[in-house]
């Protein structure tokens, strides 16, 4: 946004001269100087336009910081379209899909309240509501800088959601070496994204912390339960951040654990009458609950059920943790070298390497790291806490990378497995157990064996640990839960690891979407029906041998 005062002129008319004895007095007409202001705005059709940044002290630009009460800033805010119009479907701001009514209410709450705990049930779009609120606030010139703190594995996900829901905002992930992060804290940006541990380091371990020197208008904590231990470095770092507006996002009902609530509330009220609020927060449970009611907005899925579509698909982009990334990169490089060094390379060899790389995307045996499993664990905690159950599909059934690994990882949730290695009776028993006993929170299925024919409406969350070549196969698997008799909206999570073979396969499949539309009834597992050999070789940057 830019705002520059203009120049004006003045004139006056109508003076009278005093006359002795009989005098006529009057004031003159006085026309003051007209003042004019240019008000900049974002051109959404050209999102790559550089942001205006003026050194003029009378202008509002990305690098200028004008306090509230400054006339230019207040005028810029006042003259923007109303918030309701910005969030509605009247296309002032274009949204990739319409914001649902409860989401618009959530956006309004975030915008109008300086501190908010958005505790909607999982799958209701807390991320979208946060991004929409930030976008509107930027549009109204009410904020200039925001920081989103999230689990490290979700930085890529937030970035892709910003690209979709607020493409005109410059979003900078603060990652990499300390020198690189120091630079990234200084580059002009509307929004910075950072992982909790990285933030902790940059706040507590760095002298003259660049994070604390930021002028932040908004701090958003995603998965706010990360700061539930108020004495942890992460919690301390988050609470030290200077910001006028503080938003905490969590899908877990905070009232289930008052200890968790205290730390989150502490973060929210940190800027406001700290002494008074601290006294209240450390008091008994009823005080904490009262505080929560003042700061929390929570909608459950059944509250907004009439407004929900029957199926919502979420594509989760996962950043591989460092050790897993190193293993993946090495495996891909070594694999390609081997393929190119062979006398004869066939499609089978290529598919073998692709399969190996997909396995590493699921799990790194050397370090035990798995970005996907970590994310699934967090989401399972939330969905189980709200009484839901899940199906997880994988094309791999082994104990290292597939169903077996999942069963081990998700033991607290009493998982059941359904794979092709089971007899028909065993498979029937597994399904019956899952349907009858809600203590089994998750059913793990191989894509081949469990992708069709089963009625599993007891689950309302579906995860695809890894992706198959044919989206129709995935949709068929999802329809195990999303079918007649389902009483809840179904939430789907499809995982892709950033900068891996999974991302390249996804991009290629999107290119060929028209083919899959035609083949929607043909949920074939035959890869050759989906991609040509050249296309498969091309996924590894190889040309098909003659």
């Amino acid at each position, binding site marked *: 946004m830019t705002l520059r005062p203009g120049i004006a002129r003045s004139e006056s008319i109508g003076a009278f001269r005093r006359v002795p004895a009989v005098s006529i007095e*009057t*004031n003159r007409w006085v*026309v003051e100087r007209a003042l004019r202001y240019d008000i900049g705005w974002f051109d959404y059709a050209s999102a790559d336009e550089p942001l205006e940044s003026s050194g003029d002290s009378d202008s509002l630009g990305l690098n200028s910081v004008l306090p509230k009460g400054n006339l230019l800033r207040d*005028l810029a805010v*006042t003259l923007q*379209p109303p918030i309701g119009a910005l969030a509605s479907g*009247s296309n002032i701001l274009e949204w990739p899909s319409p914001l649902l009514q409860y989401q618009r209410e959530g956006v309004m709450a975030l915008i109008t309240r300086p501190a908010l705990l958005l505790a909607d049930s999982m799958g209701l779009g807390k991320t979208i509501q946060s991004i929409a609120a930030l976008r509107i606030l930027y549009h109204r010139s009410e904020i200039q800088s925001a920081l989103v703190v999230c689990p490290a594995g979700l930085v890529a996900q937030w970035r892709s959601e910003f690209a979709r829901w607020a493409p005109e905002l410059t979003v900078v992930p603060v990652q990499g070496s300390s020198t690189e992060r120091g630079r990234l804290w200084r580059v002009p940006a509307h929004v910075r994204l950072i992982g909790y541990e990285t933030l902790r380091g940059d706040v507590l371990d760095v002298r003259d912390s660049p994070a604390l020197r930021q002028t932040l208008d908004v701090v958003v904590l995603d998965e706010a339960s990360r700061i539930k231990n108020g004495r942890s470095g992460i919690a301390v770092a988050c609470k030290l951040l200077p910001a006028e507006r503080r938003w905490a996002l969590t899908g877990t009902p905070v009232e289930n654990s008052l200890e968790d609530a205290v730390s989150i509330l502490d973060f929210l009220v940190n800027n406001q009458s700290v002494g008074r609020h601290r006294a209240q927060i450390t008091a008994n449970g009823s005080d904490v609950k009262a505080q929560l009611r003042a700061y929390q907005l929570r909608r459950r899925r059944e509250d907004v059920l009439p407004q929900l579509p029957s199926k919502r698909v979420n594509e989760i982009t996962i950043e591989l943790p460092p050790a897993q990334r190193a293993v993946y990169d090495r495996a891909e490089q070594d694999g390609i070298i081997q393929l190119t060094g062979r006398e004869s390379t066939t499609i089978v060899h290529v598919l073998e390497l692709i399969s190996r790389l997909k396995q590493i995307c699921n799990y790194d045996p050397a370090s035990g790291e798995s970005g996907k499993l970590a994310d699934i664990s967090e989401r399972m905690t939330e969905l189980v806490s709200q009484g839901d159950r899940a199906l997880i599909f994988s094309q791999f059934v082994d104990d290292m990378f597939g169903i077996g690994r999942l069963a081990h990882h998700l033991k607290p949730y009493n998982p059941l497995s359904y794979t092709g290695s089971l007899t028909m009776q065993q498979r029937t028993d597994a399904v019956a157990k899952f349907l009858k006993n809600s203590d089994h929170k998750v059913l793990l299925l191989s894509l081949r064996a469990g992708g069709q024919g089963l009625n599993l409406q007891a689950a309302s969350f579906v995860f695809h640990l890894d992706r198959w070549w044919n989206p129709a196969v995935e949709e068929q698997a999802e329809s195990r839960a999303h079918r007649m008799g389902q009483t809840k909206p179904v939430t789907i999570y499809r995982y892709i690891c950033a900068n891996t073979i999974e991302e390249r396969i996804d991009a290629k499949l999107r290119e060929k979407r028209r083919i899959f539309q035609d083949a929607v009834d043909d949920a074939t597992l035959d890869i050759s029906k989906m991609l040509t050999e050249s296309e498969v070789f091309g996924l590894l940057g190889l040309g098909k041998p003659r």
Partner: protein
Amino acid sequence: MPVPYRRTPRAAEVGQAAYLDIVWLGADRVFYGGLLIIDGKGQPLEFVHNQVAAPLEAQLITSDESASGLLWPERMVRQIGIPLLTHSLFDACRREPDLLVCLPTLGTPEFCSAEIAPSLPFAQVVPPQDDLPMEWNWINTPPSSAMRATILSQELVRRGFTIEPFERLQDALRLVYPQASWNCLAEYDDA
């Protein structure tokens, strides 16, 4: 050979509308006025404001200190003050809007047409009242259906930017003239 594509009109191509509002604060004997220019999506582009102080009633002071006579009757104050202020806003404005919009409080259509006399399509928006819906009335000759002003007016009505921009304008005037007696805002009777 260029690749053909279908162009979606951008907000700037739909046009720019200027909303004009003038407020008379009798307690101050001042007209405060503003011009807000927005694009077809309601985004603000330019804001101009000014004030004009009207003369007091003239007093004929005789040797015996009695006072009589009026040089500036109230109805003439409005007849002079509104165009004076409006034209100062027009002169200061840098953009060339495609359309000018005002409220009935500015004056009758005849007054607006004769005294303000802009050389562009000029409309008056009547807010909804009781059971009556909002009205969009052209003050001077209505533009043809193909004209930019017509398309722009339809877009503004569709998006709900008929009365709302005036609210922004009035809030902005209160911001830039905090010293004015806004709490004494009075309706100005038609002449």
